């Protein structure tokens, strides 16, 4: 159970990055319908820790974030890369409790 931030710190469709105790990073997103998602922050195509800074939207109804570097889309619910079946990022289970976003 790792608390990340207050829910109020998130804005719809605008990701933030969080530093985990082991030095790794997650990208946390609040989508327009109010759900919260967390993915690994490192973009597998460039190696840069930037996924939190991508544009959030949908592809055929699936919620996605688009990497700001070379623009591949990643499914927020599964971490799958929709532009390359060989790539994906890890998904972190999250929940919101008492107004706090936590990784479970």
């Amino acid at each position: 159970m790792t608390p990340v931030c207050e829910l109020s710190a998130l804005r719809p469709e605008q990701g933030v990055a969080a530093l985990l105790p082991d030095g790794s990073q997650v990208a946390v997103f609040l989508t327009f319908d109010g759900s919260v998602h967390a993915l690994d922050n490192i973009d597998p195509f460039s190696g840069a820790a930037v996924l939190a800074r991508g544009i959030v939207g949908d592809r055929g109804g699936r919620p996605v974030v688009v990497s700001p570097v070379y623009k591949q889309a990643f499914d927020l619910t599964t971490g799958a890369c929709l532009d390359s079946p060989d790539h994906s990022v890890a998904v972190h289970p999250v929940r919101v409790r008492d107004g706090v976003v936590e990784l479970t």
Partner: protein
Amino acid sequence: MSTRTLVVVGHGMVGHRLVEALRAKDVDDQWRIVVFGEEARPAYDRVALSSYVDTWRAEDLELGPLEGADLRLGDAVVSVDRDRRVVTSASGAEVSYDALVLATGSVPFVPPVPGRDLPGCHVYRTIEDLDAIKATVDRSTRRIGRHSGMVLGGGLLGLEAANALRGMGVSPHVVELAPRLMPIQVDEGGAGLLKRLVEKLDLTVHTGTSASSIELDGDRLIAKLTNGLELDLDVVVFSAGIRPRTDLDLGLPLGPRGGYLVDDACRTSDPNVYAIGECASIEGTVYGLVAPGYSMAEVVADQLCGAASVFPGADTSTKLKLLGVDVASFGDAHATTEGALEVVVNNAVAGTYSKLVVSDDAKTLLGGILVGDASQYAMLRPLVGKDVPAGLLEPGGSAELSLPPDAQVCSCHAVTKQTITDAICAGVCTDVPTIKACTKAGTGCGSCVPMLKQLLTECGVEQSKALCEHFDHSRAELFEIVRATRITSFTELVGKHGRGRGCDICKPAVASILASLGNGHVLGGEQATLQDTNDRFLANMQRNGTYSVVPRIPGGEITPQKLIVIGEVARDFGLYTKITGGQRIDLFGATVDQLPEIWRRLVDAGFESGHAYGKALRTVKSCVGTTWCRYGVQDSVGLAIELELRYRGLRSPHKLKSAVSGCARECAEARGKDFGIIATENGWNLYVGGNGGFTPRHADLLVSDVDTESLIKYIDRFLMFYIRTADRLQRTSAWLEGLDGGLEHLREVIVDDSLGICADLEAAMAAHVEDYADEWRGVLEDPEKLARFQSFVNAPGTPDPTISFREERGQRVPVLLGIPEVAQ
């Protein structure tokens, strides 16, 4: 190893093509090629000769470089010894040949009018001819009113020459012996309309008459016409037709209308001697167009490589836009086929004329003439000799046209519909540019391009204008929706006019539209979530996730004091520093957290955002101009700064670049810019649609010799018109190329206000100038926006541990990042 020698006499368009074709076909290098050219310059695009008066730059007409041939320029062949198979040139060089190709072109025909050799009388065939015409006009001492000129000949070339004279500030009289203009291509009805249309454009047309004499009166020329009129002139241009050039006498038979007589394989009666292009009389016919010449070149290249090949016959259809008037003529335009029927629609009000010629049973299309509106030409021409499509002949006249596979779609390069559709269906070609690249279709005169688009549609390649899966509209349509409805947020727009939650295509496009229409700070409220990578943090993201910082340096002018500030900031934050290609300085390697601190220092020192990240105005480059340069004729730095300050922050479909040069030497490279300005003695020339980058394009001259106030007015209108109508990420170059009616249309809209929108465009620009505020200052003054510039939501101030640097040439550069293992 080359074992045989080909000598080509004449380095014109067709001679040039022959060398290209042979080099491509002669895979095992059998042939050594020697080309003699009488003109001192290499072959150029004579078809586009008239465009030379727009820029007076011969380079713009160059054909590709000639590779794999020994080119002897400025050295004409003076004799040929067919027995010994040796040619001798003017310089005395002797070259023996195994095959000889005559490609000597034509000479202009000058009717035997007394006075035709006086100074001030010219022909219209070469770059030198145009230079000489300009020299005459420049020398003319007329002080009052416009210069006046006469073009003798009202055919296609005569009208082109008249247009060129107009471009030199001369009012032309066109004198044509036949009772109508363009007698070869157009019939009476079409020519009547054509005359009315061109007369509106400062041309005076005299038909059914000719010049009986030309006399010198002081330094002026007086032409007497056979109908009794006298014209007082500064310059005379003869354009009364061409004659095949056969002054090189080989003792070979000539055709009935001149020209070296050849068979359908382009061979003269001497099996080692060929003739191609305008000097050839192929089975008795001489062609004055380049496309038949190109097919002859291909035929000879085949023969030389041992392949049997014959001239396929030629399409003499023409389409041109003269003085903004469309004229097209194709197939049996004059209905000379026995029993041919004509269907004529002459609309005097709309200013259009169309005639279709069909066979006696009305089943086969034979030809036609279109004046005023030739938009149907690309579809109709390939149908000549084929079935008349259903509905075509009914009143109102257009039809769903579908071409048979063997129809020639591009006659410049002899490309059939089949070739193109095969390439589309194989997935090789997905749009017009790729069709051009892989089949060559559309790369000649360009008149088949509309047909290429239609073929894409026919093959099911959807040329959808939909922006993306979330909007069915094009960017231009969305722009109009936002402008008309005053919607100010993406959520409202996608809710009312789209679907879903958007993506990386539509969100930045909508962000740009909202910004162009002035909706506050680009990171205000929801807008922050729409911005693409770089706009999101008002800086350019680099490969390791750090950012670069580019302060605006208008016109490239900077005080030493400000330079020192930049140096100090770079030193204090350890930023890699580089001079950009845009006359300013880029500081690399800033982390998200550092951006506001860096910008605070810069803004305090008087800098503002340079928008290196935005689809917005980048730089207006300048040269030093009159202030320092001994050649400068205007203050280019002053104007560049004025323009950069006027248009800074202007959001557009793609980035905008500009430059101002102080004289025609063009040190600021203005013609490579979206809008470029070059100083003249009398003011400024404005060029638009230039591009460096991926597909370089020289900008086109929009207006010349205007004062600063008019210049700015035209730029305001140009930019706003572009912003309203371009596609997303379409630079002005591609936009202009795709614009229906091209440069001429643009000029009508921007200069003549043909759409009546100029006042509106100017008002929109005035609003932009009024509302401009520095984006970075806007961030620094707003704690809510500032809060977003942090690496980690749960550890503010902690730098991103994945970022590290090493040193190279005394500066910090990123350590290459490892790519994580691919997770399956």
